């Protein structure tokens, strides 16, 4: 229900999702719809404001009907009621969208209890103060069990932290001083160890505060595109206002010319106006925007502004880090390549034994490969006298001594040195094999037994499953992908080809990244990237969409315009899809709204002038019962369609990755042609009902 987007684009993980019409939210929204009737608030929405003024006018004129005992009373009161419903329905749509955010904000706020902080004094002691008294620059100390009192950076120590409040992810994360994992967020809890934190934000300005404000929509500004669309629909409203207002003198002339009939009543004129002005999109516009933000949130991405979400729909170039985004962070053994005179099996066995104690993913992959390819089973090492040599940065090798065997695996240079030290000679083809692997984008891992060099393990970057398809999908959307990697160009090219990215930036320094973004932008492209390090910050700020990882540094988070709480860089793809979906929904409902008018004209115009020119009956193509039922049917349809489209506005129009041409063709067919056709049978049906119920 939550997610209309195609499954391959958006994974079904929706951490904080609620059903669309949750009872609590519904109640909240209904209440809010009435509060929003206040003309001062409604004036911000010109279309619905016009409806309210119309509703007010017809309501006031009811008094006159009562006073004169007019037979029109029952018709007029129905019109007035439906006009009020129209306003309420539009309010309800917005209120629904807001209520979802407010409910989330409430649950966030509950976690924001005022904790006690231990502030370090200059003499090395600490004092207890309320977290609210902390200022940026204060140093606090937190130990296991403490709630971190504010946003800050770890300046000393390492600790595991529970950040589920923010991310919804229960697994603890490691926070340590220095490097890119130093940022901590207020409201999260230290699980083990002790850290010193330098506070970086003042009370009320913390990440949690900002998050609450964002989900609540308190800081909601209209996005540029929303403003432009508002101008369009306000302009259309004005044009229809002119068309309806001038209908009064037109009909006066016509009634005189025909010698029969009269000027249509205010209620009928107002009905026509309300039916014509784009109430559907006018009523749903802000809901669409809020819901778009909400959908981003459901993906555990915090967008700092609606503008950022909108911009993500426009992205032309996606900068993706190789490691962790395109490839599963670890390399895997894919092949054993022995030197001359050594059998495959011998190498495989040596490699396996040397890796048995190696718990790194690379090590495990060696064991798995040996088992799968050569049927070698992990042996009971207890039988033997095994002595494991762990990896050290100094030797750049690891291995095992079993009996007389001294098995080592490691960087080619290190193994060469090891073999020589043992008094052996290195076969010529070892280096050749290693270089060949490098050229193919892999990492060579040499294996030796004492003074014998046995061969090389081919470790390879493994592109994530399905990545190629997703990148192809992006290409169809007109988005080019660029892989960013520290690898040499050779390796980078090989992986780029395998992953199916359009371009790559090898041996990329942060400055290279920044320059690349600037170059793309100068060529008229919008760029999105992810980043987590402090040195990513300039590039994140320069990019049109900068998605910072929540695990990253504060500098990175501040520079980007979105934060991914799951710290999953592939999320960028989902965000782009949501951005597009947001714009499509607006366009689709605008088109639908305008296309609807045709049927409404055919309902109301003949009804209006049946008395003046009976010949106009020819325009009553729907064969509506009588003038009153026709007008009522159109007004009722106009009101109900708003409610009917609330789910679509909140969920967004279905988005399929594809070329612009294909998308437009489809959406024009569904929302353009659909908008033209649907109202005819719908109004006809309502007219039958209205007549059958004796309303008119």
């Amino acid at each position, binding site marked *: 229900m939550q997610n209309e987007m195609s499954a391959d684009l958006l994974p079904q993980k929706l951490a904080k999702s609620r059903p669309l019409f949750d009872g609590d939210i519904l109640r909240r929204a209904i209440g809010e719809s009435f509060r929003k009737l206040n003309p001062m608030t409604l004036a911000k929405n010109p279309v619905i404001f016009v409806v309210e003024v119309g509703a007010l006018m017809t309501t006031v004129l009811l008094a006159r009907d009562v006073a004169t005992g007019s037979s029109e009373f029952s018709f007029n009161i129905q019109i007035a009621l439906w006009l009020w419903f129209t306003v309420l329905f539009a309010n309800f749509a917005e209120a629904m969208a807001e209520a979802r955010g407010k409910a989330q904000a409430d649950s966030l706020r509950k976690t924001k209890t005022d904790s006690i902080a231990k502030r370090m004094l200059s003499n090395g002691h600490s004092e207890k103060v309320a977290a609210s008294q902390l200022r940026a620059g204060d140093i606090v100390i937190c130990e296991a069990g403490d709630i971190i009192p504010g946003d800050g950076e770890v300046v000393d120590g390492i600790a595991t932290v529970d950040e589920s409040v923010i991310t919804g992810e229960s697994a603890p994360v490691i926070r340590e001083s220095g490097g890119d994992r130093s940022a901590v967020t207020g409201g999260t809890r230290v699980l083990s160890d002790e850290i010193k934190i330098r506070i970086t934000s003042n009370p009320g300005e913390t990440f949690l505060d900002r998050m609450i404000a964002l989900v609540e929509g308190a800081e909601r500004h209209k996005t*540029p*595109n929303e403003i*432009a*669309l508002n*101008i*369009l629909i306000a*302009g*259309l409203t*004005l044009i229809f206002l*002119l*068309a*309806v*207002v*001038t*209908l009064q*003198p*037109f009909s*006066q*002339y*016509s009634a005189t*010319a025909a010698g029969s009939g009269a000027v249509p009543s205010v209620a009928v004129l107002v009905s026509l106006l309300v039916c014509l002005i784009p109430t559907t999109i006018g009523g749903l516009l802000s809901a669409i925007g809020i819901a778009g933000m909400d959908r981003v949130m459901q993906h555990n991405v915090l967008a700092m502004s609606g503008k950022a979400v909108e*911009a993500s*729909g*426009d992205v*032309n170039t996606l900068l993706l880090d190789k490691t962790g985004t395109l490839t599963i962070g670890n390399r895997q053994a894919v092949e054993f390549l022995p030197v001359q005179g050594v059998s495959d099996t011998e190498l495989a066995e040596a490699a396996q034994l040397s890796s048995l104690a190696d718990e790194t993913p690379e090590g495990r992959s060696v064991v798995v490969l040996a088992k799968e390819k050569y049927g070698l089973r992990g042996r009971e090492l207890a039988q033997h006298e095994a002595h494991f040599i762990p990896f050290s940065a100094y030797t750049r090798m690891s291995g095992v001594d079993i009996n007389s065997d001294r098995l080592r695996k490691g960087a080619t240079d290190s193994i060469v040195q090891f073999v020589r030290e043992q008094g052996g000679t290195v076969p010529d083809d070892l280096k050749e094999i290693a270089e060949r692997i490098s050229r193919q984008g892999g990492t060579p891992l040499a294996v030796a037994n004492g003074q014998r060099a046995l061969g090389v393990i081919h470790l390879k970057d493994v592109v994530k499953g399905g990545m190629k398809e997703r990148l192809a999908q992006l290409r*169809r*959307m*007109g*988005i*080019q992908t660029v892989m960013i990697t520290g690898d040499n160009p050779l390796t980078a090219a090989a992986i780029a080809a395998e992953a199916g990215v359009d371009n790559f930036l090898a041996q990329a320094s942060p400055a290279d990244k920044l320059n690349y973004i600037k170059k793309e932008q100068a*060529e*008229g*492209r919008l760029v999105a990237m992810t980043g987590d390090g402090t040195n990513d910050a300039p590039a994140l700020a320069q990019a049109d969409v900068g998605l910072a990882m929540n695990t990253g540094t504060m500098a990175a988070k501040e520079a980007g315009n979105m934060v991914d709480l799951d710290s999953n860089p592939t999320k960028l793809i989902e965000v782009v899809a949501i951005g*597009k*979906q947001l*714009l*499509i929904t607006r*366009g*689709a409902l*605008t088109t639908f709204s*305008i*296309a609807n*008018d*045709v049927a409404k*004209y055919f309902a109301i*115009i003949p009804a209006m*002038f049946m008395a003046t*020119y009976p*010949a*106009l009956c*020819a325009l009553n193509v729907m064969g509506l019962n009588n003038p009153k039922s026709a007008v009522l049917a159109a007004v009722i349809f106009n009101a109900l369609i708003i409610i009917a489209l609330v789910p679509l506005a909140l969920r967004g129009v279905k*988005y399929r990755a594809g*070329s*612009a*041409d294909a*998308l*437009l*063709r489809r*959406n*024009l067919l569904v929302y353009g042609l659909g908008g033209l056709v649907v109202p005819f049978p719908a109004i006809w049906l309502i007219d039958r009902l209205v007549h059958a119920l004796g309303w008119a």
Partner: protein
Amino acid sequence: MTSNGVLQIALYFLAVLAIAKPMGAYMARVFAGERTFAHPLLRPLEKGLYRLVGVTEDTEQRWTAYAGSLLSFSFFSFLFVYLLQRMQAALPLNPQKLSSATPDLAFNTAVSFTTNTNWQAYAGETTMSYLVQMSALTVQNFASAAAGVAIAIALIRGLARQQEKTIGNFWVDLTRAVVYLFLPLSLAGALFFCSQGVIQTFSGYTTATTVEGKEQVIAQGPVASQEAIKMVGTNGGGFFNANSAHPFENPTPLTNFVQMLMIFLIPAGLTYTFGRMVGDQRQGWALFAAMSILFLAGVFVIYAAEQSGNPNLTRLGLAAADGNWEGKETRFGIATTSLFAAITTAASCGAVIGMHDSFTPLGGLATLFNMQSGEVIFGGAGAGLYGMLLFAILAVFIAGLMVGRTPEYLGKKIEGKEVKMAMLALIATSAAILLFTGASSVVSFSKDSYWNAGYGPATGNLNNAGPHGFAEVLYAYSSAAGNNGSAFAGLSANTPWYNLTLGVAMLVGRFLIIIPMLAVAGSLAGKKRLAVTTGTLPTHGPLFVGLLVGTVIIIGALTFFPALSLSPVVEHFLMQQGGRF
């Protein structure tokens, strides 16, 4: 419809198609300041004009200065035309001793000719001296058309350039349009027309004694020179009251064919110029295609309606197969007249070879709708292109959203400012049409009042009663706001009320489109051009053409459906039932 009629329409359209490219390529060169075959002859004239006027050829203007220059030029143009009419009686070249125009008529006519509308509240042969026809009206036929082309070129530059502040120089564009386009084309056209029988003389009217011995005064004048520019400048203001239906203006079907070609020559060519200037010829052809679809639809609606005739008249014994002949010339017939009516209302020309007032309701409806849809179906010289680009911006905005990107046209983002300007233009013209039509259908004066002397209520000026009368008023303001100039000519519009309100409608229809579109040009010129990807909405394919056509139709239809249903639509049904007023 006859096969010959369809053949005429088809051959005409093919001819337009054939001339669009050479004409467009030529204009692109002219406005880029490149040398053409005409330069050896005309370049000295161009330079001479710069020297006289004090223009430095290579300075460019921002949009505000460009608009300022246009306004200043239009202001003095207005003043000249106004004063010449007011002093007509005292000026030479007035063999019929016609008196000076009243202030309101002079205002209306001055506005009309400086805005390229050429609405004529007067009958030429009984009101305007040769001097006024030549030195006021013909001049404006050149000037207003050249200004329109200049604006279109400036807007194209806005789309073609990136991150620049200026959009060209109005004086240079204006001069080039006059020197390289309108003068040579008019000269050639005038000589051809005269060879076919269009008159060109300064002599007074001729008195003939007819075969049956009656006296017939035959109006004369310098017609050919005005006729040519009236067509090629899409002005449409006839020398005579009957306009191009008058045998002295348009004596044969051949001259008529040339006149029709001349109307579309520049508007159609400009679509090609557009493609060339923005560096993608397909973009130009897309606009051409959209215009063609709308145009041909209009032609065939009118033709079918006129050919099927008026049942009220067949009931009186007229041949049903002949169609509706009231207000049509024998030499042109139903097909040609229908084609011309579609061309003239589509192109905001306003010349006529048949009386639109006497068209069948559906034929009249199509001419009305051509104007109400914004005069963008090829449209006026320059005006059609910038008007169509206005719709392109709106179409792209709504459809662009549906492809999931911030809408862009030719790589330029369409944002709040562009939408605002496009809507402003749209609202202004709709308001001018609807509000003035509304006022005129109810406003009442006494018969001896200044405002509508002799008629009383504004509806007293109508020539027809019932829905058709309402259509006369609606047509008048649609024509004025669309800067078309044709009329349901039964309306006696030469009273202060109509002269002033129609004048205002013309001003709105001209300047409240030009100024917003220049603002758009300025804004777009300053923007970066975005890269084109498969995610970009293509604006050159059939889908976009369909979308553009749909936008033009639906915006026009939604705005004017109520008004139209009370005039031609209901009249159509009434006519079928034999209704009379």
